[in-house]
């Protein structure tokens, strides 16, 4: 539970765009808040902000992080409180500016202020390795690298990990493998989790299955991790487990197996006959 020590600062990054950084930030943040921690999410994708939409808070934004660093408002004024949980808030990016409106130094001062009041500060990095990435990483001491089991995404993740390793401030980094499709892995059409871990030689934080509920949640501005009930989507459980692992709990990884499709059975019959 909440400690009196300074909050942990975690950057969520990927290099490649569209692999689920922002979705992961929203869900991991909401997952930690759901456990009772005080969490703030920072969107550093200036000019192309999206975290507000995923959280369903786009209509509440008055000030943003650029207003804070340019001293048009106080930091607390720019924090948008989540409509579901009082211990979760968002520091939105500016939509009408560009990446150069923020520097790593400014990022550092904003984060060091937030650290006093929050248990977790999650920083959503923009795609790429340019200034936006540098801003996002500047204040972080931990990193979560998001990748999908595709060549381009894994290659970019490798580049990002290389960059993170050169940053002294980053004490540890772990991988979240997103959009995993057990059916394709089963058919040997997709690299499996172990393949990716072997190639990147990185520790695993979580596996998120491809799940249409994530799209539905995004459309409704409600992180999928907040679904409640007996039968929640697998992605919900996956993100809850990630939040638990971040908080220090030892949670086994989700079993992603799906029932064997009938084509697989036919194939195995054939193999049996041939042997």
């Amino acid at each position: 539970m909440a400690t009196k020590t300074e909050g942990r600062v975690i950057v969520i990054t990927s290099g490649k765009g569209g692999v689920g950084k922002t979705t992961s930030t929203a869900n991991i943040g909401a997952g930690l808040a759901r456990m009772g921690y005080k969490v703030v999410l920072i969107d550093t994708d200036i000019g192309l902000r999206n975290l507000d939409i995923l959280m369903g808070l786009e209509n509440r934004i008055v000030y943003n992080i650029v207003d804070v660093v340019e001293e048009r408002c106080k930091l607390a004024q720019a924090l948008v409180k989540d409509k579901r949980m009082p211990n979760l808030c968002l520091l939105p990016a500016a939509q009408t500016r560009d990446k150069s409106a923020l520097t790593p130094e400014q990022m550092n001062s904003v984060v060091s202020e937030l650290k006093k009041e929050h248990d977790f500060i999650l920083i959503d990095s923009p795609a790429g390795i340019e200034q936006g990435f540098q801003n996002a990483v500047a204040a972080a001491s931990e990193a979560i690298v998001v990748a999908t089991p595709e060549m381009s995404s894994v290659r970019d993740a490798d580049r990002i990990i290389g960059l993170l390793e050169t940053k002294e401030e980053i004490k540890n980094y772990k991988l979240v493998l997103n959009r995993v499709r057990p059916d394709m892995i089963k058919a040997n059409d997709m690299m499996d989790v172990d393949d990716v871990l072997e190639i990147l030689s990185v520790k695993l934080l979580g596996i998120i299955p491809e799940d249409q509920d994530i799209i539905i949640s995004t459309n409704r501005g409600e992180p999928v991790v907040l679904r409640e009930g007996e039968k929640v989507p697998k992605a919900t459980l996956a993100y809850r487990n990630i939040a638990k692992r971040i908080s220090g709990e030892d949670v086994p990884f989700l079993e992603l197996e799906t029932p064997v499709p009938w084509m697989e059975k036919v194939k195995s019959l054939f193999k049996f006959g041939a042997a």
Partner: protein
Amino acid sequence: MPTEGLQPQNNKLVQWWVGLFQKLSAPVPTPTDTKTEITDKVDGSASAKDDAKNRLKLVLMHDRTQLSPSLLEDMRDELMEVISKYVEIDKTTMDLCLEQESNTIALVANIQVVRGREATS
């Protein structure tokens, strides 16, 4: 050839014999063969994963060492030049590539030595 000793007037018969012989000697697809073909196809699509893995490993090795295939080619040529000063090597079989074992990347050269320079001079 079994047709060699036959008379020219038996030309048609010869052709028939040759045709029959070829038919019989040609490899007939056996049931097991067809089966291998099917499983091959299945495994062929299955290797999408391995394709990705192997290509990715190669790309990453080049990324990490910042060695492009053309640089590797240049290095190969220069290495050959240097080595040829001391030993006579088979330039056609020389193989230079990057290999990864767990966390380390190795540059592996496979060079067949024909004979030492001293011996020839």
